[in-house]
């Protein structure tokens, strides 16, 4: 038993961090966010590219193996499991990399021809859950992110996985999406698609999706700790750094506790998926999703609090973490359902 990152895992994380710093610098993302928010109202035609999606950056992610990471080596993939994938996705989350990262990554490891090219970054795959026939989740609206840049849309339901041609959707772009870097479309009707996976494939997709989304959320949570701590060391009031006051220290300490516990939960869940004899992967995945959603959202809010009035301004980028955290947390489904899943299996 060695629950520390291996040298290879550390190196993998560092290489993705360096790539993100070069390809997705925060200043560029802030600029893109400002352009989107300022964009005048109007429909965006399907297939057009938006400033929030960078094809070249996407290709760079692909060539570093982000999408082929879990594709077997026999199929020219990297041949790694979920645990190293969480190391990669934590870095992508920390850097606020926009785009349908998790669905493209999961699609690449499916054998279906419909997803062919996802591993190389040539095919961008989005995903949406098909709503049940009844219950609160059945109510509109149906929302899908990054629609204009999708080549394939995976529709995941209890019954299985289908693929739908994005241009066949009747959808309208939401003028101002909550997260300026995740443009959203409201889908009026979701047509039936071609079935490419059964209910087991769908269950596996959903479980692994929640672990990788949780890894992105851990990246956000951890980055918020760093930003808050850095600001608390620099900002002076009453003649000393605000980080010397216990009231501020304790906010930062609680942020670290949330980020660290969420991180080990996510990594343990991923290992449980990879090594099923070490525990209950469904319970671990739901628990990791719950804790990481809480960590990212609470830390983004605490980070704004530590930044004071400036934290509430557009020019300090903390709000981008808060909004991304909300978007990702929403994709995990209702908190109550995650908690009930853990309780059912405890």
């Amino acid at each position, binding site marked *: 038993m060695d629950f520390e990152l291996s040298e290879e895992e550390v190196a993998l994380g560092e290489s993705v961090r360096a790539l993100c710093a070069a390809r997705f610098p925060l200043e560029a993302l802030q600029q893109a966010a400002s352009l989107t928010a300022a964009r005048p109202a109007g429909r965006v035609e399907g297939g057009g590219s938006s400033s929030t999606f960078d094809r070249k950056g996407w290709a760079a992610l692909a060539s570093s193996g982000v999408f082929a990471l879990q594709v077997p080596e026999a199929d020219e993939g990297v041949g790694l499991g979920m*645990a190293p994938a969480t190391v990669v996705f934590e870095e992508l989350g920390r850097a606020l990399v926009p785009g349908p990262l998790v669905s493209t990554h999961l699609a690449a490891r499916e054998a279906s021809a419909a997803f062919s090219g996802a591993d190389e970054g040539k095919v961008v795959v989005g995903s949406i859950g098909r709503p049940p026939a009844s219950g609160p989740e059945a109510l509109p609206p149906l929302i899908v992110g990054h629609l204009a840049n999708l080549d394939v849309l995976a529709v995941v339901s209890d019954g299985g996985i289908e693929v739908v041609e994005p241009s066949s959707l009747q959808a309208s772009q939401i003028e101002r999406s909550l997260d300026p870097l995740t443009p959203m479309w409201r889908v009026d009707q979701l047509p039936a698609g071609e079935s490419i996976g059964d209910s087991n494939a769908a269950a596996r997709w959903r479980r692994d999706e929640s672990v990788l989304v949780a890894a992105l959320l851990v990246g956000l949570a951890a980055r918020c700790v760093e930003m808050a701590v850095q600001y*608390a060391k620099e900002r002076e009031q009453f003649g000393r750094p605000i980080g010397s*006051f216990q009231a501020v220290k304790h906010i930062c*300490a609680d942020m*670290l*506790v949330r980020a660290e516990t969420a991180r080990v939960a996510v990594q343990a869940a991923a290992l449980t998926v990879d090594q099923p004899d070490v525990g209950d992967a469904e319970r671990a995945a739901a*628990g990791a999703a719950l804790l990481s959603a809480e960590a990212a959202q609470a830390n983004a809010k605490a980070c704004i609090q530590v930044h004071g009035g400036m934290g509430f301004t557009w020019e300090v980028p903390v709000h981008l973490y808060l909004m991304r955290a909300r978007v990702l947390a929403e994709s995990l489904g209702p908190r109550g359902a995650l908690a009930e899943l853990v309780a059912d299996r405890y």
Partner: protein
Amino acid sequence: MDLRYSEAEEKFRAELKAWLAEALPSLPPAPAASDWPARRSFDTNWQRMLHAAGYAGIDWPTDGGGRGASPVEQLIYLEELERAHAPYVGVNFVGLLHAGPTISVEGTPDQRARFLPPILRGDHVWCQGFSEPSAGSDLAALQTRAVRDGDEYVVSGSKIWTSHAEVADYCELLVRTGPKDGRHKGITWLAMEMDRPGIDFRPLQTIAGSTEFGQLFLDQVRVPVANRVGEEGDGWRVAMVTLSFERGTAFVGEVIQSMELLHSLRELARRSGAWDAPDTRRRLGALGAKLDALWALARRNVSSAARTGVPGIGGSVYKLALSEARQELAELGMDLAGRSGLSWDELDGLDGSGSLGNAEIVNTWVHSLSRTIAAGTSQIQRNIIAERILGLPKG
């Protein structure tokens, strides 16, 4: 990252489980909580059994008489003892987890030979004399005075939160040998025999009605200089060796116990019908996720210790989060117990299976309040995290 245990680790676990299955049924019945001589006898008997089986001082180095187990084996040991409901370390806590490890690292060969074997055999019980009425979280403010007189120190002052003092043979004592306002400098670590003249003890009753600790009054107690561990004036550093240990693996069993308690509360909720309320299931699940994460964090900390050889700073994060989760768990228990939670005495009717009674729930609830105070308050833990891990400036 790998959560699978090696063949050697699994072999260690299997042997331990087999021994526990054989040893535990031979234990005498547990004594009453307030009968300290009987508790000493019960706990030291258990320690002798561990010693005979080769498990005493599991984490101690072999040249100190311990087993010298790896951090992962220690984790397995703590996990399996908890799962088997083996006796708690009890009155041997300070000897095995504080004084012993300190002496094994900082003591002279003579001190190691004198003090360590009796702790491992269950012959000597130790208590702790660190905190004082005016030096709690601010331990460096301690004022108990030791004045050198030939081959002895003459010690006067008062210590508080001293557990098991009435049945202890030795006390690990922090005294001031330097100037009064010297803070961390001028503190010395002594092993004080508890049968010396001038020692008086007043038990303090807890809000749970128990007398597990109290206040020591020291009036010109003579302690041989040969009982000084480390140099005179170097006691702060010597004491920190012990405390970093306490924040390492000392609370591993507690997370396992908390997970088992949550499982029992779940069963209780299912029988009582409380389970039908989504709010109950969600509280159970949210807490389950936290405890699962803390178990993962314990394994992360142990893995880190296995690589670096020291418990590491993760201990403060773990201790803080576990203390708070423990209180949440206790609160959930009381909510599920309902009216039965209004009685310290066992009542019929809470649980048809009899596996979890209201008395245990009430005791867990009251004791949970001490978790965020003992072994460094949660506020002190947050300061440690902020200053030593995050590097925020001291106030």
